[in-house]
C-alpha cells in the first residue's frame, strides 16, 4: 500500500472499501470482481468449501495500517471500530525544543504500536501485540504553532459561533490532538495510555472523547455507518483512494501540504425527543429513507437526489428544511464537500440526572479548506436544518493535521523545522 493511495482497491463502486483480511474472507459472497485475482481466488475457495465447522474465526488483531507515508494514517484509511480522541494542552514552560522532543517521542510510540511492536519502555508490551489496524493521527492547535514560533494559518482558530451551539469548555479547543483508533478498544486504551505517559512531561489532558462504530466482521467492509438515530451517516463521503478524495481533503501547498484540517464537534443527540418523531418525520428531517439511506426522491443510497421532485401536493419531496438539501447547498446554489469520519458516543447520564441516556456523535470532518468547505456547510445547517431540533453541538475544536512523515522523521517535522 503506497502512502498516496491507502486503498489499493480502486474501483467504480462509490462505496469506500476496507482492505484486509476481512475483505478477503468476505470476497466470496460480497462480489469479488474488484479484488485482485489472488484475493478473489482465496475468497472463492472459501465460499466453495462452505463453512467448515472447525474453521478458526477470522481474527483482526494482526491487521496493521502503515504509519509512515505522504499523509498521516487515520484519515484516508477505513475508520475502525473504536477511537479515543485526546486534546492536550502544552505546559507553560515547554519551548520549541521541548515540543520537538515531545513529537519525536509520540512519533516513535505511534510508529511502533501501529505495527504491533511495543513502545520503548512499554510496561505492558503484551498489550501491543495485537495492533488491530491501529492508527495514531496527530493534529496541531493554534497554541502549539505559537509555541513553536511558526505561523498560524488563518483558518486554525475556533469556528465561528453558530446559533445552534451550546459549547462546553470541557470539550473545546486544545493545543495538540491525538486521534487513536483501532478495531479493538483494549488496543486503543493501551496506545492512548502509552502516548499519554510520554506526553505527560510536556502536556496536560484537556479533554478525552471516546467513540465507537460497528465492530469488525459485522457489516461488509465499506458499509456506511448508522448513527444512534438509526440514520445512514456518511453516504456522500468521497471514496477513499480516489482523486476526488485527495481534492476534497488534502492541502496541496504551504507548510501543511499533504495534511488537512480537522474539525471535531461533540453533537449531543436528544434521543428522548427523537423517540417522539414518527418515521415519516424522521425521513423528512434528513431527506433520506431510513431503510437504505436512499434520497426520498428514489433510487439507492448513492443515487443522486432529485431536489426538483415535488409531491402530489406540490411540496418538495426532499423538503427545504431537510438535512441533505441544506448540507448540499441546493437552494443557495453552492456546493462544498467535506470528508466525515464520525464516531458514536453513549456515556452515562450526568450524576443526579433523570435522563436515561447521554448519547450523540463525535462529528469528525476533514477538508483541505476549512473556511471554504466546512464553514459554509455548517453555517447553512445552523441556519436551517430540521435535524437541529434533536441535536446540539456541545463541543468544538479545530486542528491542523500535518502531513505524514518518513522513517527517521517525526510527525510535523516539515511544519516545525
Amino acid at each position, binding site marked *: 500500500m503506497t502512502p498516496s493511495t491507502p486503498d489499493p482497491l480502486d474501483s467504480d463502486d462509490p462505496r469506500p472499501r476496507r482492505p484486509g483480511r476481512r475483505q478477503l474472507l468476505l470476497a466470496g459472497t460480497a462480489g469479488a470482481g474488484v479484488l485482485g485475482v489472488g484475493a478473489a481466488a482465496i475468497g472463492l475457495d472459501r465460499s466453495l468449501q462452505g463453512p467448515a465447522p472447525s474453521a478458526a474465526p477470522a481474527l483482526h488483531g494482526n491487521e496493521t495500517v502503515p504509519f509512515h507515508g505522504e499523509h498521516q494514517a487515520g484519515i484516508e484509511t477505513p475508520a475502525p471500530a473504536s477511537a479515543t480522541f485526546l486534546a492536550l494542552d502544552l*505546559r*507553560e*514552560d*515547554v519551548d520549541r525544543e*521541548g515540543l*520537538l*522532543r*515531545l513529537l*519525536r*517521542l509520540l*512519533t*516513535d510510540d505511534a*510508529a*511502533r504500536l501501529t505495527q504491533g511492536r511495543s513502545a*520503548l*519502555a512499554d*510496561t505492558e508490551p503484551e498489550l501491543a501485540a495485537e495492533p488491530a489496524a491501529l492508527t495514531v493521527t496527530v493534529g496541531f492547535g493554534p497554541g502549539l504553532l505559537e509555541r513553536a514560533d511558526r505561523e498560524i494559518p488563518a483558518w486554525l482558530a475556533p469556528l465561528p459561533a453558530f446559533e445552534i451551539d451550546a459549547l462546553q469548555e470541557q470539550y473545546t479547543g486544545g493545543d495538540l490532538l491525538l486521534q487513536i483508533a483501532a478495531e479493538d478498544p483494549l488496543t486503543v486504551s493501551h496506545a492512548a495510555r502509552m502516548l499519554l*505517559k*510520554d506526553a*505527560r*512531561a*510536556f502536556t496536560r489532558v484537556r479533554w478525552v472523547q471516546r467513540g465507537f462504530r460497528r465492530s469488525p466482521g459485522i457489516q461488509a467492509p465499506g458499509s456506511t455507518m448508522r448513527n444512534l438515530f438509526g440514520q445512514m451517516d456518511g453516504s456522500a463521503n468521497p471514496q477513499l483512494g480516489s482523486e476526488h478524495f485527495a481534492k476534497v481533503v488534502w492541502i496541496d501547498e504551504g507548510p501543511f501540504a499533504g495534511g488537512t484540517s480537522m474539525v471535531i464537534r461533540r453533537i449531543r443527540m436528544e434521543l428522548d425527543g427523537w423517540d417522539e418523531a414518527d418515521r415519516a418525520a424522521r425521513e423528512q428531517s434528513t431527506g433520506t429513507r431510513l431503510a437504505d439511506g436512499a434520497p426520498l426522491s428514489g433510487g439507492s443510497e448513492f443515487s443522486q437526489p432529485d431536489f426538483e421532485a415535488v409531491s402530489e401536493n406540490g411540496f418538495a419531496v426532499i423538503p427545504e428544511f431537510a438535512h441533505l438539501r441544506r448540507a448540499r447547498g441546493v437552494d443557495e446554489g453552492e456546493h462544498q464537500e467535506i470528508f466525515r469520519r464520525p464516531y458514536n458516543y453513549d456515556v452515562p447520564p450526568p450524576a443526579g440526572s433523570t435522563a436515561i441516556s447521554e448519547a450523540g456523535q463525535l462529528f469528525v470532518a476533514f477538508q483541505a479548506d476549512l473556511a471554504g468547505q466546512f464553514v459554509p456547510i455548517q453555517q447553512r445547517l445552523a441556519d436551517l436544518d430540521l435535524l437541529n431540533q434533536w441535536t446540539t453541538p456541545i463541543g468544538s475544536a479545530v486542528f491542523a493535521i500535518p502531513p505524514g512523515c518518513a*522513517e*527517521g*522523521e*517525526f510527525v510535523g517535522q516539515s511544519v516545525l523545522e
Partner: protein
Amino acid sequence: MSRTTQFRTSRPGSLSRRAALTFLIALPLAACSAGSGDGADASADDASDSGAADATAADTLTVTDPWVKAAEEGMTAAFGTLVNGTGADLVLIAVTTPATERVELHETTADGSGGMSMQEKEGGFEIPAGEELVLEPGGNHIMLMDLPQPLLPGDEMELTLVFSEGTEHPFTATVKDFAGAQEHYVPEDAENTSDGGGEHAGHGADE
C-alpha cells in the same frame, strides 16, 4: 522509526542526532587493537568469507531498543538488549557517555527481605557468542550517576559499550519518562541512597 541500531564495530566518537534516528547504522568493522587478530576479529573474518549477507547478520553486536530513564539530577539508568552476533564471547566491562563521568554496570538481586537491591557487577557482564544481555528495570542495567545536567524526556543520549578485548560500540538511546526502575541502590556512601531517577524524574517541565 526503528530504535534498533546496529553497529558492526567500534568507532568511539559521537553520532549526530540525525544519524541516530536513521533506521540502521553500520560502521566499518575494525577493532581498537588493530591487527591483533583476537577472537572477535578472527570470527568476523570467517563469517565475511561465507558471504556478505551472513556477515551482516553474524558479525554485529546489536543494541535493541536502548533507552534511559529521564532524571532531573542524581542518578538514573540505561536499558536495552545487547545481542552478541560477533561469533565470539564478549565481556562488557564498562560504559562511557558524555552525559556523566560516573557509570557503573549493575545487577539486581534479591535483598533477602523480599525486595530487590542493585549492586555493581563485579567483572562486568559476560555475553557469550550468540546470546543476549537484557538490561531492564528490575534487572541488570547501566547505572548513570552524578548527572551534571538533567536528562529530559525525548533527549537522545550517546553511550559507548566497552568490551574486555578492547572493542567499543557506540549507540544512541532515547530518554523516556518512566515511573518504574525504583530499585534500591546499595551505596558505598549514604549520600547516594536516594534514587535520583525517582518518581518525579522527567515529569519535568513545570512540576
